[in-house]
C-alpha cells in the first residue's frame, strides 16, 4: 500500500493560513491503514487546526469528510455537495489523492496535509517499511522475492557493496542490508547459484526516468 505521514502542525497551519472555511478530506484506503489520513485523523487534524486558529485569536470553520478513495472519480464526486462554500480543500490523501481532487474540482484550491513516503509493507503495528520502488520492470524472480531496487540503498543489482556490515546497511544500522536479505533468501530456497549470473545494466526508462507513466488497457475502456 501507499504510506504517508502527516506534515507538522506548524507546516499545515502555514499552508491553510488565510482560508477560513476548510473542507478536510480523508481517504479510506491506504492512508487509513497507515493511520495518516483516515476518518479518525481527519477529526484530530480538524480539531487541532480549529484550536490553533483560536489560539491565534481567530476562527476556523471545518467540514470533515472521508471518502473511500481520493483516486477514483466515483468517490471523489461524493464531495461535490460539500465543497461549494468552502474556501479550500485540505486533502489527507496521498499525492495521488490531492491531485485527484485538484483535477476533479479545477476551480478549488486543494492543499496537502501529508507527505507521501512510498509503497510499503506493515511490518508490525506502527512500523511500515518500503518494499517496492515501482521501477516498472519487476526483477523479484531473480532475487528470491527480495527487491534489490527497493531494499538496497544503492539499488544494486550486482551486490552487495562494501558497506554491508553484519547484515546492516552502512547508511543506518537500523536498516537491513538488502543484499544480505537477498543472499539469505536465495540460500534458504537453494538458489544461491543464480546469484552468479551478472545482471545487465537496468533499463530505467520503465521507471520515473522515462517520464510520467500510464497504463492504457483498451479492453477495459468504455
Amino acid at each position, binding site marked *: 500500500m501507499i504510506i504517508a505521514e502527516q506534515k*507538522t*502542525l506548524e507546516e499545515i497551519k502555514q499552508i491553510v493560513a488565510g482560508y477560513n472555511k476548510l473542507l478536510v478530506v480523508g481517504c479510506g484506503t491506504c492512508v487509513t491503514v497507515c493511520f495518516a489520513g483516515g476518518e479518525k485523523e481527519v477529526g*484530530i487534524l480538524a*480539531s487541532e487546526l480549529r*484550536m490553533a486558529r*483560536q*489560539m491565534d*485569536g481567530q476562527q476556523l470553520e471545518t467540514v470533515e469528510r472521508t471518502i473511500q478513495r481520493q483516486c477514483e472519480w466515483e468517490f471523489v464526486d461524493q464531495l461535490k455537495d460539500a465543497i461549494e462554500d468552502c474556501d479550500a480543500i485540505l486533502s489527507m490523501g496521498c499525492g495521488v489523492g490531492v491531485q485527484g481532487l485538484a483535477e476533479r474540482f479545477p476551480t478549488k484550491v486543494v492543499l496537502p496535509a501529508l507527505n507521501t513516503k512510498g509503497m510499503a509493507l506493515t511490518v508490525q503495528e506502527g512500523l511500515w517499511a518500503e518494499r517496492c520502488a515501482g521501477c516498472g520492470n519487476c526483477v523479484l524472480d531473480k532475487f528470491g522475492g527480495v527487491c534489490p531496487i527497493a531494499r538496497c540503498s544503492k539499488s544494486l543489482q550486482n551486490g552487495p557493496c562494501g558497506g554491508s556490515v553484519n547484515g546492516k546497511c552502512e547508511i543506518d544500522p537500523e536498516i537491513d542490508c538488502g543484499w544480505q536479505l537477498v543472499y539469505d533468501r536465495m540460500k534458504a530456497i537453494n538458489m544461491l547459484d543464480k546469484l552468479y549470473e551478472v545482471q545487465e545494466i537496468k533499463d530505467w526508462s520503465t521507471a520515473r526516468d522515462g517520464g510520467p507513466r500510464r497504463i492504457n488497457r483498451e479492453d477495459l475502456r468504455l
Partner: protein
Amino acid sequence: MENEAEKSPNGYEPKVVAFACQYCAYSAADLAGPTGLQYPANVRLVKLPCTGKLDVLYILDAFENGADAVFIAGCLDGNCHHVEGPLRAKRRLVLANKILNELGIGADRLGMYQMSGGESIRFVEAAREMTDRARQLGPSPLNQRKSAANE
C-alpha cells in the same frame, strides 16, 4: 453538599474532565460516596468501556469544549478486563501530549492514573490532584483566548 476545602481560594474553578474505565476508576468514583469520600465538583466523569477505547480525539474534544485539564483513570497494569487497555491508553497519551504541547495548551494539563475498582481513595486523590494542578495553571490558554474574544 460542597466542601469548602474543595474550593479554590482565588475563586477560579477549572473544568476537569475524567475519562474513567467502567471496570475500575468509574466504580471507584461510584464508591467514593458510600465510603464518605468527597472529590471536587470540578470533575466531570465520562465513562469508557475500557481505557483501550480512549481516543486522542476525545481528549482534544474535551479541551476544545472548555476543559482546563483532563485525566484518564484506568485499571492497574495486568488487571485490565480487556488485557491491554491502560497500555494502549498510555501509548495514545504520547500523541495527545505532543499535540497539546504543539498547540500551546501544554501536556501538563493531561494526566493518567491507575487504580482498582475498590480504590475510591485513589480516585479521589487523582481528582483532587488534577483539580489543584488546573487551579495552579489557571484557565487553559484556549479558554483565555475565548474569553478575550467574547469581551
